[in-house]
């Protein structure tokens, strides 16, 4: 199966794979970051970014620059690239790219519901939505009061409907169950994505299952750590764990019993991949946070995915790497703008 798959891959997706690999070469390297961190003003940053793959993406912005403009433009560039890929994608790759979009859709819905709960205006919330996750019915989610409402009226038509099955209830929406909805949605999404990749088989499965398994485990661990000291019961918490990671099943059972950070650490240390992530983390200055360690690990996985050919993982990895790069640039830009240079080096280098 694998060989046949390889043979026909280029027929449908060869062009896009080539394109995405080309895009990936534009990702900033260590040297670029070193230059960026030396900038004194955002204008300097702009000047330097001109010399990279970003080219003249800020050329038409009037001075003075603000971080939010940079953020918007960075995002716009990624979206344009992604939409180009999506428009030219065919068959399985189209589905795959849609899967990437779904996670942004979930984020957008949750953002809108939370915003409405806090009595924010829709017009104020919309610019905050990620453009990759915009779909037709999205803006009407504000009318729903219960999850059943939400599903029946709005989401049933959207591609997110299948993920929503588990969280339908007649309860009113509130802060707590929005979080639960988010995590259940994510769980369903990750599981569906994982299963789809597995069904596709070949190198796509090899690469993507690795990345998605890590994503699932990361969510489980983060959920557990964040749940300490909240009213979330252990049974409910266990329901939120995506069941596709390396922790499944034994690790998740152990995690569901955890009461404190140390026990989470103990569980994770049983797994060779996650042990180094917990080493040397802490809240002391100079230490890296667990979150950063996770990000670093994610970056490594995504960079590795480019080592394999004839698979869709490169598309996912490119989006994720680019996202990380945007975060890095924004971090550096914020540090420059706020004259807070002490922490400017705590970005996550990609190459």
């Amino acid at each position, binding site marked *: 199966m694998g060989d046949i798959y390889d043979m026909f891959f280029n027929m449908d997706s060869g062009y896009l794979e080539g394109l995405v690999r080309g895009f990936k070469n534009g990702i900033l390297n260590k040297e670029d970051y070193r*230059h960026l961190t030396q900038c004194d003003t955002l204008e300097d940053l702009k000047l330097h970014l001109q010399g990279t793959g970003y080219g003249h993406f800020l*050329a038409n912005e009037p001075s003075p620059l603000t971080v939010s403009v940079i953020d918007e433009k960075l995002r716009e560039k990624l979206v344009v690239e992604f939409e180009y890929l999506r428009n030219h994608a065919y068959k399985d790759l189209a589905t795959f790219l849609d899967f990437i979009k779904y996670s942004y859709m979930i984020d957008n819905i949750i953002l809108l519901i939370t915003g409405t709960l806090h009595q924010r205006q829709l017009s104020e919330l919309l610019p905050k939505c990620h453009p990759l996750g915009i779909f*037709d019915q999205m803006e009407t989610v504000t*009318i729903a009061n219960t999850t059943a409402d939400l599903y029946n009226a709005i989401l049933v*038509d959207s591609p997110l409907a299948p993920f929503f099955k588990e969280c339908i209830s007649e309860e009113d929406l509130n802060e707590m169950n929005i979080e639960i909805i988010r995590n259940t949605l994510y769980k369903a999404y990750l599981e569906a994505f994982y299963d789809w990749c597995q069904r596709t088989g070949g190198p796509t499965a090899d690469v993507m299952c690795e990345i998605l398994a890590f994503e699932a485990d990361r969510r489980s661990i983060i959920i557990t750590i964040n749940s300490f000291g909240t009213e979330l019961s252990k049974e409910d918490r266990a329901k939120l764990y995506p069941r596709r990671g390396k922790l499944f099943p034994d690790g998740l059972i152990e995690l569901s019993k955890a009461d404190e950070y140390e026990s989470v650490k103990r569980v994770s240390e049983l797994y060779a991949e996650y042990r180094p992530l917990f080493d040397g983390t802490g809240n002391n200055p100079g230490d890296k946070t667990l979150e950063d360690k996770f990000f670093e690990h994610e970056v490594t996985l995504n960079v590795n995915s480019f080592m394999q050919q004839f698979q869709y993982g490169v598309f996912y990895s490119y989006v994720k790497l680019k996202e990380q790069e945007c975060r890095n640039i924004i971090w550096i830009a914020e540090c420059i703008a706020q004259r807070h240079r002490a922490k400017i080096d705590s970005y996550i280098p990609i190459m």
Partner: protein
Amino acid sequence: MGSLFRSEEMCLAQLYLQSEAAFACVSELGELGLAQFRDLNPNVNAFQRKFVNEVRRCDEMERKLRFLERELKKDKIPILDTGDDPVAPPPREMIGLEAKFEKLENEMKEVNTNQEALKRNFLELTELKHILRKTQSFFEEAAMYHGNQPSETNQAEEENLLVNDYAKTPYTKLGFVAGVILREKVPAFERVLWRACRGNVFLRHAEIETTFEDPHTGDTVNKCVFIIFFQGDQLKTRVKKICEGFRATLYPCPETPQERREIAIGVMTRIEDLQTVLNQTEDHRKIVLSQVALDIRVWFIKVRKIKAIYHTLNLFNVNIAEKCLIAECWCPVVEIDRIQFALRKGTELSGSSVPSIMQRMNTKEAPPTYNRTDKFTQGFQAIIDAFGIANYREVNPAPFTIITFPFLFAVMFGDIGHGILMFLFALYLVLSEKKYLAKRPENEIFEMMFDGRYLILLMGIFSMYTGFLYNECFSRSINVFGSAWNVNAMNYTNTTLQASGTLTLNPNVYGVFRGTPIMYPNGTGDPYPYGIDPIWQSAGNKISVQNSYKMKNAVIMGLLQMIFGLVLAFYNHRYNKDYLALFCEWIPQLIFLLCLIGYLCVLIFYKWAVWNVSNSNSAPSLLIGLINMFMFTKPTWAKKTQLYSNQNEVQITIVIIAILCVPWMLLTKPIILYLRNKAKMKQLVLHVDPIYNHDSTANMGTTRYAGVRVAVDETSDDVAILDHDHLDDPETASITPKDEEEKFDMSEVLIYQVIHTIEYCLSCISHTASYLRLWALSLAHSELSEVLWTMVMHSGLSVKGILGAFMSFLIFWGFAGLTVGILLVMEGLSAFLHALRLHWVEFQSKFYKGEGYLFTPFSFSLIVEGRVDE
């Protein structure tokens, strides 16, 4: 030798520019376009350079200009192109320009915001107008519906309705909202409404035929009027939220027809008022923009020039103590006077009292390659540069390519007709070149052909020439001088002649050929004076005759071109004074080639001369003979393998000489290098001379331009130069030259030599074989055109009667299309590619290194056209 034979002589010069004069000087140099500046601060970030602020200001100005240009394009106002080329304004004028652009941009922006607001207003009013118009019909329908079929659920009200004003009452309990929504959102909108309100609302929608313009983006959009009926306040808030979610705009719509009419009238008058205001804003905008259109091109040029100057100044070294900028540039030696003149002019313009100084420097770095081309030679130079830029002062194959390239092409493309078509096409390009140069063609393929117009012209001319030799015009022969054959002598009977289309021409028949008496003892006249006798056109053995002839020709031409390549290599060695390579590589190479292929060519001529028609059957095969020569098989008369007496002895000698050449090529050079190195090491160990490092020639460069000599003493000058020269590391420059020379590594030299020797020996055979493509392509071309003639044109011509005229007319177009499409374009491209390959691989590999880099002078003419991305 002409300037194309070797690239221009270049020198590295150092410029001392007073800071106040630097701008004007660089500006003058930019107009001149003869100096390539080197980056003297490669380790400094782009944003840490001295003139980064000025560059930024230029960026900002460019942004504003681009904004204005976009606005001009939006309104389709043409930009005036007067073709004048303003010089870069002095820096003090920058502020004026900035202020001007700032003002224009603000004005434009203000106009735009006003216009947008007005347009938005206008849009809303138009939408309202449409709502009123469309809903009218909804209400009328509803009224009719209620009138005909009274609702059964509300009997009491129905009775009431009959009594009272029935047009009004049915809506009293039903609320409604009316609005406008994007057309593509309607289905989703309808579904969500249905679901969210559990089917308790009633939606009617109608398309608005006219399209709207989105005031923000300027796109045209299609919209729909909708009206939703519902019951109760709860549903109302819900519906309103959904409308908000779908970005539908809601408009107040009164319930009674009278009120609606009143509003409609009010809306109409307001629309008219707005229209006049809108027109006025539009006019104002037009006036502003048309003024901009007059100047924007000049502004762009000015700003780009200023920016380019500051970019260049950023490459310079700043000497704070002496208040001057130090630049290093490559420039052609013969142009130094013009550069100095430009510097003086720049200094005068800036009003600086201290002159700018130019001084030649010594360097070990290879200078850039600068071949001065004109419109004729640049196409040929481009072919060479595409392979690799020549090393500095290396023999440039371009001038020879001007003739050999079209010639080799034409050998493969020989046909008078096709040559004429190609020639005419190129002639058109050449004659209309002014038109196309002023306005570069958009089409990339066309541009490529345009750039190579002189190449195509020559290719066409040469194709005509070879076509004449092959005697082929669209595959037909032309009988110009009268055939030299006397077919009568063949004694064909009438029936044979009628039955067969082609017959074999046998030259070995008495009296058949009116050839010269020397070769044909019974010849009665002269042969066909030029090219191939047209009678072969109808001969059955045409191909076999031509094959043998073209094949041998290809080998001979190949040998000549390869030997010519070696001759050029000789010029290279002599110029570089590389006598080691000359005696240890070049001479054995030449001997080797002559022994193998040269001998073959001698045999070809010998065979042509000695064997004639009568004894050609017993002529030995040259190819077998060549193979046997290497096998040391003795040729004999008996086996028909011997060409001349003592052949065996001669051949053995030749083979032995060729074989001896191999170790000569392989070993002598490495051994001599090794011995030399050993001797040098001994010397170094004996006495290390610390003064040896001082470059004795360094002073020469400075003294030659005594008129502009710097007033600093020699030694400190040298130190300064070395410091700025980032490629010569200061450390190595100050130590002895032994470090600068590569460490001698015997194994590396040996491996290099082995590879080169093997490559050369094999290539002698393979390259000769490669030249056979001349024959193969030429055969393919003539066969293809023959097929096209017989299959297409001939079939049209052979239809008889009136129908034949029509058929010929129709078929001619098919024939013409195929001729251009297949024979000219496709065959032409293929012959072009093969000619290119023969030049790049077979010819240039003999002498051309192509490891140099191109001279890219700082020139405004390139920057302003946007061809160089600064």
